[in-house]
């Protein structure tokens, strides 16, 4: 068994390495990708760890192929993932859409760096938030989670696999260069302390299997290739049997179900953490490495008598509107610091409906937003 995840163990890890250990603990046994800073350590550790566990690592010719191979492996019944940064994430979008459409569980890690284009390869950014939500074309459901600590990298990766298996959707994990390369001593949870969820397989005989039939969860059981079901999987709009269709009623039913399965699971998917929010009058809403700076800034502000609190978003999409609404109703001002021009602050404003004042604070110069900066913003309020 693996050295990590099997026993409670204090280990020194960087964020990228903890993602690998989280994936393995969740049951991931296939990785295909293409090297890119600041995500390369994920590939490197996967290439060492997966063959030890009878899994497979392959470095493909580009990220398009990486994403394709990941979907192929998942269709053959193996939990699989890839990892990249902005430029590679752009290349993955078409096949990511295929995974949404054909409902193939898989996990994609995007360790964000400055963009657009080749941008700032070795500096942090949060510029890909909206791309993670809307990067592939067409209306589609997707789950996006953000990590901010090394422990998060482990736990949220497990969570990402569980959600992808449960809802049959690709799950995107957004990390950033700071989270990826920060080393921390963490106590990883041992097996038994977390659940590793596996997709539901069909139990019925092949002649009764209807691969995309609706059910109460909106998530049909998934057969793997080679289990005798010889079904069809396509990126075209399909009927319940999986075959291409242009019938409006069948298309509407499919797209409706793809969205419904996520809406129905919303309460389980929505993940946030609160810090000193109980009596807060001013809320900082943050995610990723910025939320760590924000936590410190909240403490400093409290010392100055300002009742500040932190709402840390883990789930970015579907947007955790209930938690955000609650914070907005409670506080007179919400500050949203981000390493982009204001991608999540827009979402906050969208759900705010003038209940509260939403202020944004942005940096796009490749530098982390420091606790002092957030503190300065807070005391100005």
């Amino acid at each position, binding site marked *: 068994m693996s050295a990590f995840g099997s026993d409670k163990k204090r280990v020194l890890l960087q964020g990228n390495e903890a993602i690998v250990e989280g994936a393995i603990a969740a049951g991931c046994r296939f990785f295909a990708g293409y090297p890119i800073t600041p995500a390369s350590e994920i590939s490197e550790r996967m290439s060492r760890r997966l063959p*030890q566990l009878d899994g497979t690592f392959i470095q*493909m*010719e580009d990220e398009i192929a990486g*994403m394709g191979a990941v*979907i192929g492996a998942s269709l053959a019944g193996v939990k699989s993932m890839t990892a990249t940064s902005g430029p590679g994430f752009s290349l993955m979008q078409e096949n990511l859409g295929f995974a949404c459409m054909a409902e193939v569980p898989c996990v994609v890690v995007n360790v964000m760096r400055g963009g657009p284009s080749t941008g700032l390869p070795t500096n942090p950014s949060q510029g890909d938030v909206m791309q993670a939500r809307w990067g592939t074309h067409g209306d589609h459901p997707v789950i996006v989670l953000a990590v901010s600590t090394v422990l998060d990298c482990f736990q949220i990766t497990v969570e990402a696999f569980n959600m992808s298996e449960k809802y049959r959707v690709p799950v995107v994990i957004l990390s950033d260069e700071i989270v990826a390369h920060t080393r921390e001593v963490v106590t990883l949870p041992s097996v038994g302390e977390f659940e590793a969820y596996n997709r539901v397989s069909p139990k019925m005989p092949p002649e009764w299997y209807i691969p995309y039939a609706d059910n109460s969860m909106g998530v049909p059981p998934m057969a793997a290739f*080679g289990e005798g079901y*010889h079904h069809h999987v396509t990126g*075209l709009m399909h009927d319940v049997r999986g*075959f291409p269709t242009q019938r409006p009623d069948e298309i509407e039913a499919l797209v409706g179900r793809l969205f419904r399965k996520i809406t129905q699971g919303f309460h389980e998917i929505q993940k946030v953490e609160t810090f000193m929010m109980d009596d807060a009058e001013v809320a900082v809403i943050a995610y990723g490495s910025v939320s760590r700076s924000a936590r410190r800034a909240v403490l400093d502000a409290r010392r100055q008598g300002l009742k500040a609190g932190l709402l840390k978003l883990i789930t970015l999409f579907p947007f955790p509107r209930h938690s955000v609404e609650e914070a907005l109703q409670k506080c007179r001002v919400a500050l949203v610091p981000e390493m982009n021009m204001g991608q999540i602050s827009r979402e906050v404003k969208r759900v705010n409906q003038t209940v509260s004042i939403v202020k944004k604070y942005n940096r796009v110069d490749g530098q982390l937003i420091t606790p002092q900066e957030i503190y300065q913003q807070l005391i100005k309020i």
Partner: protein
Amino acid sequence: MPQEVAEIVRKYLRHDKKFPHIWCAGCGNGIVLGSLIRAIDLSGVEKDNIVLVSGIGCSGRITVYVDLNTLHVTHGRALSFATGIKLAKDSLKVIVVMGDGDATAIGGNHFIHAARRNMDLTAIIINNQIYGMTGGQYSPTTPYDSKTTTSPYGHIENTFSISELAIAAGASFVARGTVYHTQLLDDAIRLAILKKGFSVVEILSNCHTHYGKLNGMETPVAAMRWFRDHVAVVGKEGALPPGRSAETDEKIRIGVLKNVEKPVYSEEYQKVRDHAKNSLSS
């Protein structure tokens, strides 16, 4: 319909669900479909253990019609998906069907790398020298000077030879056939399926609807005549048979062009796994 043909049709086609097909009457894709199911049947590989993967194009629709594990993916990426399937479950026989544009334009990079790695996959490329599905635009195999909907003044680019590309990129097995020479085609596909390693069958096919219409071969029959008159069948491993002449040398060679033994990727990777596990226990 002879008894055995009827049986094969019943066994391999989703006959009750998915017909009529979308292809034009007389399209070479149908001949390839027939050849493919005969080859699969003769290969003896269990239906449940075969995954048929296709890309996008008229050729890509083939997966809908065949009662196997079937996967119809994005344009040009079929070999990437197939690579993932094969590495995740080595017991599966993975056959990939692509068009010439699918395999060598948008998917060209995946094609040469799958060959270079010697992935244990069977790649069947239906080369109709044009983009059929999108209405007859030129592809990497469109002949010089021919007319297409995007080369109305005559095509000025050089062509890929798909088979030579596969040979140079490192495929274990490469054969070329045509939709006129069906017996040869059945054999070539069967050998490719049974071959361990990356095996390619390039099939010269007709798109009379687009290519033929603009280049003086309006009917499938005209295309068949052309295939009949412009090929030379090679002997073992690509050599032209004895008695070759200047005339045969001019022709397109069909038959098995390359057949070599070399380590396949999944076997090599098993060594990596063994090595990794040893290093863990020591």
